[in-house]
């Protein structure tokens, strides 16, 4: 039987182009020498498009349970067919485990640091392991630690996931904390936060939650996170997807605990990009902005 290759929508291609623009803008001084770490999928479309910019590709692929090697084989084969095997290293296993444990299922270790980290999850962000731990959030935290420990320069982080199984409690509680922080900054933000909490679309709350989460985690490892407009689109089989882009700048500040540099009001006022039928447009989903006092 002919096995169908994995297909990507035109919407996904728009996201890929936006990500490429982010790389070109923020890592302009290193183009052609960049190192990539992430989940390119077995078709490798992201890294094939960005190939001229890359010197080193570390792809993580866990495959399907009990026959993991099939998709891993396909990834390696495609890298060879498409002429990028000379740059590619495959790590076998779950990317969250690789980030948390520091090695793949067979002990292979990523060669830190990386210039581009693409966590293009096919599932949701709030996946919990059998112990109830939110693995992905812990993995992102470990990512920053490992980048910092290996003296990374500024790098970009792409974070994509679907909107299944959102942990409403986690998201809403986080947004309430944001409201408290905004009050401390002297902002009358109650109306705005209420609008986010009451909005019918999850994208609204996730925008705020993810941008704040990444900023908080990055600051713990002395990185300043600068977010770009989050993207939401309909992916394969009409799955609702969100894609975030961040520039993580190494901070010249001391190692003392501190708050993120990117202001909450800037995050709230950052418009989103909606991609429909391969066309993008800016939107704030009708949410109010925080005005300057």
């Amino acid at each position, binding site marked *: 039987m002919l096995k169908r*290759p994995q297909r990507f929508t035109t919407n996904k291609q728009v996201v890929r182009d936006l990500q490429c623009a982010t790389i070109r803008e923020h890592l302009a001084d290193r183009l052609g020498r960049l190192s990539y770490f992430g989940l390119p999928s077995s078709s490798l479309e992201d890294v094939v498009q960005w190939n001229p910019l890359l010197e080193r590709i570390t792809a993580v692929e866990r495959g399907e349970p009990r026959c993991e090697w099939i998709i891993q084989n396909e990834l390696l084969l495609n890298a*060879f067919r498409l002429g990028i095997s000379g740059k590619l*290293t495959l790590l076998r296993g779950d990317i969250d485990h690789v980030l948390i444990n520091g090695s793949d299922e067979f002990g292979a270790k990523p060669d830190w640091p990386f210039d581009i980290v693409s966590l293009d999850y096919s599932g949701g962000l709030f996946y919990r392991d059998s112990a109830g731990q939110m693995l992905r959030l812990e993995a992102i935290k470990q990512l920053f630690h490992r980048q910092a420990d290996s003296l990374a320069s500024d790098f970009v982080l792409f974070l994509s996931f679907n909107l299944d199984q959102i942990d409403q409690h986690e998201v809403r509680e986080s947004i309430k904390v944001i409201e408290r922080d905004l009050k401390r900054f002297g902002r009358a933000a109650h109306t705005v936060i209420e609008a986010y909490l009451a909005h019918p679309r999850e994208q609204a709350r996730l925008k705020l939650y993810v941008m704040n989460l990444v900023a908080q985690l990055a600051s713990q490892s002395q990185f300043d996170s600068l977010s770009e407009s989050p993207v939401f689109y309909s992916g394969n089989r009409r799955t609702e997807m969100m894609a975030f882009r961040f520039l993580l700048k190494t901070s010249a500040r001391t190692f003392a605990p501190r708050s993120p540099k990117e202001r909450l009001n800037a995050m709230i006022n950052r418009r989103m990009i909606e991609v429909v039928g391969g066309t993008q447009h800016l939107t704030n989903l009708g949410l109010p902005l925080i005005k300057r006092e």
Partner: protein
Amino acid sequence: MKARGVIDKGDEYYAYGSVLEALSQGLYPDRKHILREFVQNAYDALGDLRRQSPHTELEPVEITTSAPSLIIADKGIGMSGETMRRYRYLGFSEKRASSHAGFRGIGKFSAISVCDHLIVRSSMLGDTKSYQVQIDASGMLKCLQDEKNPPLETLLRDYSQISEKAEEAELHYTFVELHGIRKDARELLDENIIKPYLIQVAPLPLDPTFAYAKEISSRLQQVDPRFMEVELRLNRKPIYKPFLENASRPEFKEVFVKDGSSELIAFAWFCQHCGKGQFRELGDGESQGMRHPYSGLQYRLSNFAIGDSMLTRKTLWQTTPERAFYFFGEIHVLDPTMVPTSDRDEFEDSTARKRLYDRCREVAATLSFRAGLESRRQRFAEVVTAGQQLVADTQAELESGKLETELREDKDYQVRRLLENVSKRLNKSGRSRSKEDKVVRRAKQVIRRAERLRRTLKADDAGQGHFLDISKIIKMDAKTKAVYDTIIRVLHEEFRSEPQRFATLVRKIHRALREDVAC
């Protein structure tokens, strides 16, 4: 047609699974040969591509260790659907020994003894499909154990499958993954083990930093129609055939089927060590001073190694075998009737092999003679240098009046030995004088100086002050001097075989006499 009286039910099986087990496990006791088997296939595919499309630039063969997998991939001509279907057959091969490195169709099954799954994906140039053969090796072995030797046919059919998918017509490749390398074959995932092996056996290009790499390659391409070298990348880095430093420029030797014939059966190239003796390991590791592993000559067939340099040593160097390692190089076998053994450690026994070895022995004899000459020349130069030193040191001692009279006899003996040694070597060097002009000039100079020195050593020293006479310095009376001379004579006898020790002893006695007696 069946002969009368034959009872044949027609549904019997003639081969059983244990054949496969024996082949897979017994074919290559050295697991690394399994890797070579797939590298051979890759090079054959590239060779076929070159034959079909001579101007296509061949891309490197890629070998990647990605635990738990070993991957061998090439962009050769690729395999058609029919060839891929037959890939599952045991012992079937369309290749010919005369044009391909691998040809028996057995070696691929050696992989089932080292991995859980063998996955081969291939697409032929111009084909719009790619085909994948998947052999469930762990399933096969389990079946062999559980079902007590099932028919071979059943085993091969049930545990292999072929599938196809669309592919771009211009893509052509073969991608082999040995997935789930077993614990007892983990060496196949160790770059430190497989790299030296590949360097030794694979048809790699010579290291481009070797000044004569292009010249050698060009000569081989002219004489060997099967010669091909394609870059191989191991874990993304290119590897090459090595060369040894401090070697002469390469020489080439054609080996004909017989004297006066123009039929070539082998072509050798070699570089001779410019230093003394064998090529040896440098550096400060454990192997320092040992014979260099890349020294010696190696047989090559289709540019793949047959055996190692010990094979040529064993088959060609009948006398002074150590001289085999005064050289490094290759003997490319051109005789199409020469067939390697399955493990490629030797050639199969045949009249062609006997003829090859006989003819190559003549090459080895020439090399051995030259190595002997070179060795003698090096030794001659060493003796002359040591002689120059002895003459200069003794001359200086005499001029400063520091040569003890007790050592006069020994010194004379040393100079006499030197004269004999240098004169003998000078006479023997007649045949290769031109190369040794400088050494010969130095030798003659040493002889002249040594003869002058001997005359001084033998002459009466009255008033010359060349020698140091302790009896005069400490003013020994006649009786004391007689006693002293007797002691010295006894000591001299005692230390006849250790002149250096005797000299040290005399100097110590002198020092003691000066310090104690003179006071």
